[in-house]
Each structure stands twice: as C-alpha cells, then as structure tokens.
C-alpha cells in the first residue's frame, strides 16, 4: 500500500511541475506562434495582392453563399477598391485537399494564384505550386475563359500526367471567382479609405 501511495504522490508532483513548466513556455511562445500563423496568411495575401496599402485581413468581407461562408480579403489603396483575395479549397486533389489563395482585380480578372497547402505527389501533382502552372491563371476572368483543363476541352493547360491536380486547382479558382463575379454589389461600395459598410 505504501508503495502505491508513493507512486501516486510522485507522479502527481511530477505532472504538476510539468504542467507549470509548460504553461510558462506556452506563455512565452504563444505570441510568436500566433504571429507566425498570422504572418503566413498575410504573406500569402501580400503575394496575390501586391499593391494594396491597407490591412486586407482587417478589412475582410464575409459572404454567405448557400450556407458556405467565403471570406474575401479586400485590398485598397489611395485610389479606392483594388480587388480582393480569397482562400479556396478543393477536395478533389490527388492526395487530399488543395488550398489556394487567389488575388482578383476589381474588374474580376485573376491577379495571382498561390498554393497554400497540398498533398500532391512530389515531382508530379506538386507542380501545381510551380510558377508555370499558376501564371496561366493571371489575367483570366469568368467571362473570357473556358474554365477547364485542356484535356477536358478548356483553356487551362494541365500539368503532364497530373490532370487531376490541375483540374482541382482550376475548379478551386473558378469556384471563388464565380462568387466574386456574382456579387459585385458586395464590393462596389468600398471606398479608398473607410471600412466597408
């Protein structure tokens, strides 16, 4: 019995100390952890919306379309509304979900596409994050493009032997772009300075 009590006591003490230690470390690192996560998102937005001078995250607009909430990070500069960035995810990737960040101009053309995360095959589907593939979206809008990969008769050249990944990205870009284009009113009132109403 004595043995058992000793067991309980020692383990409890060690656990308590460990807990305290962890809490302290957590306290110290939590800020930089949050900052790192925030920075990651901001960097992506910055990349697809290079010219804005506001904080797009602070000025984000949420649109509820058929129960799905889309967040548009709005970009402005002194001239007014520049465009928006949105995050879009496709579950049709070869290895799993593909998350992308798309920057759109005010006139509804794609400004840049960044791949945030994917699980595609290295050396194959993984080329969706390559410049060559992403750049072909630039300048396209819903109206002037057949949003499908070439193999399916569309305008987007798929990556050789990685049609599935290419298709998934194409669909993800289109999905967000559709919503952006379909809701011009939500963005039309954005002015150069003040927050959107």
């Amino acid at each position: 019995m004595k043995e058992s009590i000793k067991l309980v006591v020692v383990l409890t003490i060690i656990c308590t100390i460990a807990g305290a230690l962890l809490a302290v470390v957590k306290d110290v690192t939590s800020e930089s952890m949050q900052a790192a996560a925030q920075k990651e998102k901001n960097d992506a937005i910055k990349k697809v919306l290079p010219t804005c001078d506001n904080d797009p995250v602070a000025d984000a607009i949420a649109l509820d379309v058929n129960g799905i909430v889309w967040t548009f990070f709005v970009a402005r500069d002194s001239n007014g509304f520049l465009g928006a960035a949105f995050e879009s995810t496709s579950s049709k990737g070869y290895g799993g979900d593909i998350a992308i960040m798309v920057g759109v101009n005010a006139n509804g053309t794609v400004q840049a596409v960044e791949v945030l995360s994917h699980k595609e095959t290295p050396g194959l589907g993984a080329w969706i994050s390559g410049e060559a593939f992403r750049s072909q979206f630039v300048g396209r809008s819903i109206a002037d493009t057949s949003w499908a990969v070439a193999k399916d008769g569309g305008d987007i050249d798929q990556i050789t032997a990685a049609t599935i990944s290419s298709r998934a990205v194409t669909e993800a870009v289109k999905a967000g772009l559709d919503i952006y284009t379909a809701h011009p009113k939500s963005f039309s009132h954005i002015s150069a300075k003040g927050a959107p109403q």
Partner: protein
Amino acid sequence: MSDLTIVSSSPHAHSGTSVQRIMLDVIVAMLPALAAAIYFFGWDAVRLVSACVLACVAAEAVARKWMGRDLGVYDLSAVITGMLLAFNLPPSLPTWMAVVGSVFAIVIAKQLFGGIGYNPFNPALAGRVMLLISFPVFMTSWSQWVIPAPIGIDAVTTATPLGLVKTAVLSGGALPFTFNSSTALQLFLGNQNGCIGEVSAAALLLGGLYLLWRRCISWHIPGAYLGTVAIFSGILWLLNPEQNLSPLFHVLAGGLMLGALFMATDMVTSPVTKRGMLVFGAGCGVLTMLIRKWGGYPEGVSFAIILMNAITPLINRATRPRVFGGVKSGKKTS
C-alpha cells in the same frame, strides 16, 4: 569425377526438366509478342528489349559476383525479367530509364533476396512499378503510330484506350469511343497504343498456348484472372453501359493478356496449389478492375499482380491441400 559410384537418395530417375528448360520455353513463348512489338514499334522495341535484357543479365552477373556467388545467369531467368520489363515499357522511354528499371528489378527485387526462387515479388513488375512511380511523365507518354492509324479509336491521341476511358470517366464525360467488332479486332491484333509488348493480344495468346502445351503454366491463373475481369467488367457493363465498356474490351485492352499469361503465372511469385492459383487469379482480376474502374491509374494489371504476389505466401498457407486420406479439418491451417 572419381571412379567411385554415386550414392544418393531415391528417386534415381528424373523427368529431365530443369529450371533453365522452363525459362527457355517462356522465352520462346514471348517471341510472337516480341515480333509484334517490333512490327508495331520498330526500332524502339528493339532498343528497349535489348537494353533491358542486357542490363538485367549484366546486373545479375555483377550483383552475384559482388555477393561472392556463382554467376547465376545461365538459368535465363534474367533474360525473361529483361524481356518482360521491356514489354511493359512505353516505346518512347529513354534507354537509361529502362536500364535503371532493369537494375532495380534484378538487384533490389531479386538478388538482394538471394536470387531466383527467393524473390517475393516478380522482379519485372517491381521494376515496372518503380519506373511508373519514379518517372510518371515518361511512363505515361505514348508515341504515335508508326503504322496506319487505327480505325475507331482517335488516331491522333497519344493515350492508350484505357487512358482515354479513364480520362473521360474522371471528367464525367461520355465514353470516348464506341466499342464494336472492328475495334475489338484492332485491339486483338495489336493496333492500339500501349506498352510495346502488351498491344497484340493475338501474339500473346499464341505464346500462352505454347506455354500451356509445354506444361510451363497451368490454365488456372490466366483462366481465373481473365474470367474474373470479364465477369467484373460484365457486371459493370450491364449495370451502366453508358459509363462502362464491354468485358471484351477489358480483356483485350491494356496489359491484361500479358499480365495474365506471362506475369501472374511467374512460378516463383504465384501460389503452388491449384486452388491457390484460382484464388490468386481471381484476386488479380478483382484488383485490376478495382484500379481500372476507381483507382488513380488507368491500368491496374501491374499493381494487381504485385499486390497478389505479396499475399501469395498467405494463399499458399490457406489453400494447403488436404492430405490424401486426411480428415476434413482446418485446425492445422492457420
């Protein structure tokens, strides 16, 4: 040899067969398919087959020498590995890749285990799958026709019939071509895109019949394999003829004939019992169709066979014949 008499255990008679003899038969049986490959793909077929065979034989000799063992190439199994691997390559594959595949097949998949008889996986298939995963772009680029374009199937395309079907189905579209008796004949004779050795079902069947006649293989594996594929695809076809092609297409297209007759029947990596062979063949068939229908690859023969290779020891265990006069009980077969 001394002048002493030889003493050994009975029996003192032998059928005269040998591993080398069987291998020679298999090589002979592959000659029609080789001829077809050269006819359809010309120089590329010659280039790939000779590269693979030479690389396999050399790799085997070097590996065995390095391991301090006898040369071991005289049993001709390395030649077969080379030919089979080459048969499973697209005509445009760079030679050096074929060589890499051959070395992988012989060194990693065969000699590391101790050479012929010890390898759990068919070396040629291991090499092929390795290449497919390593160099997917090269392994799925199909060259154009060197002979008059086939009728029915889009002549300009650079995809295999199975690839066309997969793409169409994945994009939710209709079937890319109609399958009728003339397309069937094309596929049967070999007028299709594909790996150099798999295109002509007729030539492969000829070789298969020779193997059956020479008793190098039994009908069980190819029979069960082709039968299962036919039944599986037949059911799909009956359920939804819009999305699925007929069993005949599935039997004739892709590497099925080559796989069923030459690769699934590899003695070392397939079960030894007749019942086991049926299970093995059926398993190959189911997996092939599973991959063709729902998988990421248009063709599933290689993966199906190599997966069944993996469970061959378990099949052997489970299908142990009941000893003559033995009681019906599974207590010892765990």
